[in-house]
């Protein structure tokens, strides 16, 4: 069902259920996921993801129901049951009520491409066949996924707020590997776009093969501080964790965020801009619905400007509690998570470098890092200290040139302090899907950071 149909259904349900203060969000995702590994298309799936999120308020007592059942009777029952539960719940401090009809809304970005929504299993197979062949012909092992997804969303409140939006996402990720599962040389390519026809599968596959070949016979490098040039895929891994710990009102109120008590202060280097920009109109960078789960129209929010903390993100309740205005950052519950508040489209500002080679030219001795793995940002959230490892390409840089491959290295450093040592970013930026969301992506240029701290190295094999 498309978004307009979901909107009509949500209004009908709210009328039929008869609750005075209620909110209903309906979301239907249809995902075609062609997942390949060891050169075979072993998991090819058509996934239906229907979701309804109901909230009912009795005064400032609020309860919520999340259900996959979108038939009329089930939804009416869900609204009424949520109303009964709300009577048993303590009052929510500063609950502002649900969104009303007069809440401002903007122009809805066109993020729906029929070719992506209609992509068939046969079409995905046809697109992937040359990918599998190319990696096999290179004498390497392939893995990855081509996904074509359509997401229709609508929400309505008893206060008259009504929103709807259709979007598509095509997401391609590919690995070229020296071994199927034992580690060793590996290269990655990937791209996300609203239009499956805009994906450059051959180009990204070639990149994965090239990086894998470059990664042969890695040297073992000692731990220490190295100047690094990181590709956007590596930077966005770090930004995901920064998003999780830094910018949401609950973490700021709790005092664990590095932004807590520091708005207006310098938190990182000059020239560093971080923006939550869910309304970005570049079809290669912007994804998802233009409104949040509460129906608040999303905003472009400069979070860090020239290294100075400027703003954080709110939903309606935290905004009311903290004397602010909602930024449209209320998130849907997903993957067993509670939802909450946070960015969906965090973007690191572009620099002036013409490309990665320009960044490398300024490195006497350092590392070129293609991707990171298993980053964790909970070591010391107040300083945004993170640890993780390199993956899928890490190379020694000497005299401005990429040299020998280096075995995977573990870093432990503060991202904000690292960005304070950033002295180069590319003009071009890339969208990288966030791993916890099928409709969001973070955007980054490639960056150069001086003195990034590595505290360990991984063996490539046991022996």
């Amino acid at each position, binding site marked *: 069902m498309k978004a307009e149909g979901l909107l009509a259904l949500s209004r009908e349900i709210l009328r039929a259920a008869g609750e005075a203060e209620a909110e209903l969000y309906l979301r239907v995702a249809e995902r075609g996921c062609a997942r390949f590994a060891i050169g075979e298309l072993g998991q090819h799936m058509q996934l239906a993801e229907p979701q309804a999120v109901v909230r009912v308020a009795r005064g400032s007592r609020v309860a919520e129901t999340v259900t996959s059942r979108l038939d009329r009777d089930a939804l009416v029952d869900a609204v009424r049951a949520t109303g009964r539960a709300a009577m048993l*719940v303590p009052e929510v401090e500063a609950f502002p009520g649900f969104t009303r009809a007069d809440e401002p809304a903007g122009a809805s970005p066109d993020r729906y491409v029929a070719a992506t929504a209609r992509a068939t299993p046969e079409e995905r197979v046809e697109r992937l066949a040359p990918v599998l062949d190319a990696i096999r012909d290179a004498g390497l092992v392939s*893995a990855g996924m081509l996904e074509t997804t359509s997401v229709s969303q609508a929400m309505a409140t008893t206060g008259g707020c009504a929103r709807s939006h259709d979007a598509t996402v095509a997401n391609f990720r590919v690995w070229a590997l020296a071994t199927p599962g034992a580690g060793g040389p590996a290269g990655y390519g990937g791209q996300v776009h609203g239009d499956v026809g805009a994906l450059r599968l051959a180009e990204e596959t070639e990149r994965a093969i090239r990086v894998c070949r470059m990664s042969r016979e890695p040297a073992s490098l000692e731990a220490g501080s190295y100047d690094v040039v990181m590709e956007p895929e590596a930077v966005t891994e770090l930004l995901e964790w920064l998003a999780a710990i830094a910018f949401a009102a609950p973490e700021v109120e709790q005092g664990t965020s590095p932004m807590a008590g520091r708005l207006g202060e310098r938190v990182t280097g000059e020239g560093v801009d971080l923006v939550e920009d869910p309304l970005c109109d570049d079809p290669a960078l912007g994804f998802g619905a233009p409104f949040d789960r509460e129906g608040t129209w999303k905003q472009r929010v400069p979070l860090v400007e020239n290294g100075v903390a400027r703003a954080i993100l709110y939903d309606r309740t935290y905004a009311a509690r903290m004397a602010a205005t909602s930024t449209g950052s209320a998130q849907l519950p997903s993957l067993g998570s509670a939802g909450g508040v946070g960015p969906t489209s965090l973007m690191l500002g572009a620099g002036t470098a013409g490309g990665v080679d320009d960044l490398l030219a300024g490195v006497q001795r350092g590392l070129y890092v293609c991707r990171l793995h298993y980053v964790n940002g909970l070591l010391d959230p107040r300083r945004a200290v993170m640890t993780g490892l390199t993956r899928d390409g890490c190379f020694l840089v000497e005299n401005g040139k990429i040299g020998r491959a280096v075995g995977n290295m573990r870093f432990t450093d503060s991202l904000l302090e690292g960005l304070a040592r950033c002295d180069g970013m590319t003009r071009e930026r890339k969208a990288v899907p966030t791993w916890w969301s099928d409709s969001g992506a973070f955007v980054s240029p490639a960056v150069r950071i001086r003195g990034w701290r590595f505290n360990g190295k991984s063996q490539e094999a046991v022996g």
Partner: protein
Amino acid sequence: MTDASLHAALAWLRKQPDVRYAEVRLVDEGGERLRVRDGRPEQVTAEASRGVGIRVLGAKTWGFACSADTSEGALLATASRALAIARASAAVARKPVVFPEQAASLGIYETPLAVDPFTISLETKLAALDAPVHALRSGDARLKSAEAWMDWTRQKKRLLTTEGTDVTQTFTFGACGMNVFASSADGTSQRRSYPTWQGGDGFQAGWERVTALDLPGHVDRVKDEVLALLTAPLCPAGTRTLLLESSQVALQIHESCGHPTELDRALGTEISLAGGSFMQPGMLGKLQYGSPLVTIVADATSAGGNGTFGWDDEGVPAGKRALIERGLFVDYLSSRETAAALGRASTGTMRADAWNRTPIIRMVNVSLEAGAAGTLEDLVAATDDGLLVATDKSWSIDDIRLNFQFSCEIAWEIKRGKRTRLLRDPFYTGITPRFWGSCDAICDERDWRLWGITSCGKGDPMQVMHVGHGASAARFRDVTVGSAS
């Protein structure tokens, strides 16, 4: 009605000449998520999810489709779609999937409960969270924020296969815990949790488990420790003898033994997102993974375990088998297809986290067998110089599960058999077989506890699974430690 629909879909699949195997899996689940923070209800959510997943093995390879509509017409269409996907994918398959036969399984599994949590009122549950939160924040202005949570899930699963398997399972999963954040004027922020970090506090049991946890009874200790951490020195860097308390051993098992013994990872089918494994098939029976004290078992029958069930999602009965036997790597967590690649039988670990996901290999209860080193306090007393760390704070490990680094909420320095000063922000790091090889003491049954992880992520798209880990405290020599701050 649904029963007839499931059988109709299976009957249609049986008639298709190129269907070698198919499974039809109905999942109907409901639950609630409750969270109280600083005296207010942060989340009061009821959850419901219902649908059918159909996995089909065609002439060469697999197809999967699913539907929230469980009517006969919808499930026939879903079966047809799954087969169409398998047929489409066959165009690029080089060789047919080898999938050994499995005797039909029949039966019922149900979580044993003393007190059904869904008979306890919402008010009682919220009050059980509100009281400790209030107590955690009282008495000191540095106690900045406190929260307590409780999750309940009841999942009913019916599995029918073309081999004649027909099993019905009803699981009741729970999780409960609390934490408190304290801040000092200099900006230092510390957290202390009970019973462990959120996500490591799961179980398969009823309300009786919440009663036994006794959150109010642990408030004073948790408060005292978090306040003491604010002024504690940072954990000094060095090479130390390290004692892990039970829940930290559980996480260590999870990341450095559970995941690398997943055969799909080892063979290379989980590269996207998760990665591979240093524990390759050629190392079976040869790799000295740990010291002779270390025996780690995969046990899907442990009472109350988060990874306990009757049958996996391929109809293989739950069992118990060693993965590491006296330090030697002897077996994998496997599926029918992956085990066949090694000429072995499935160890029964295929599970999907929902009706709209395909089964993949998941940990069951992967547990370290108890040792003979007495209680934790006995082990401390037997340690001349070392560190005891507790309660995970951050976790990271490389893509083949060799290089790990974990930080913990708290550390105590041990001198001459006694806990001495408290240390904050400790982390430790190592290489998996070297670390387990340095294990020279494991506490006995009195310290052994079955922990449950509620948030194990794997697969693409991501699936979040309940898994379990039994462990008692253990000691490791010559470990690199430091401060995460």
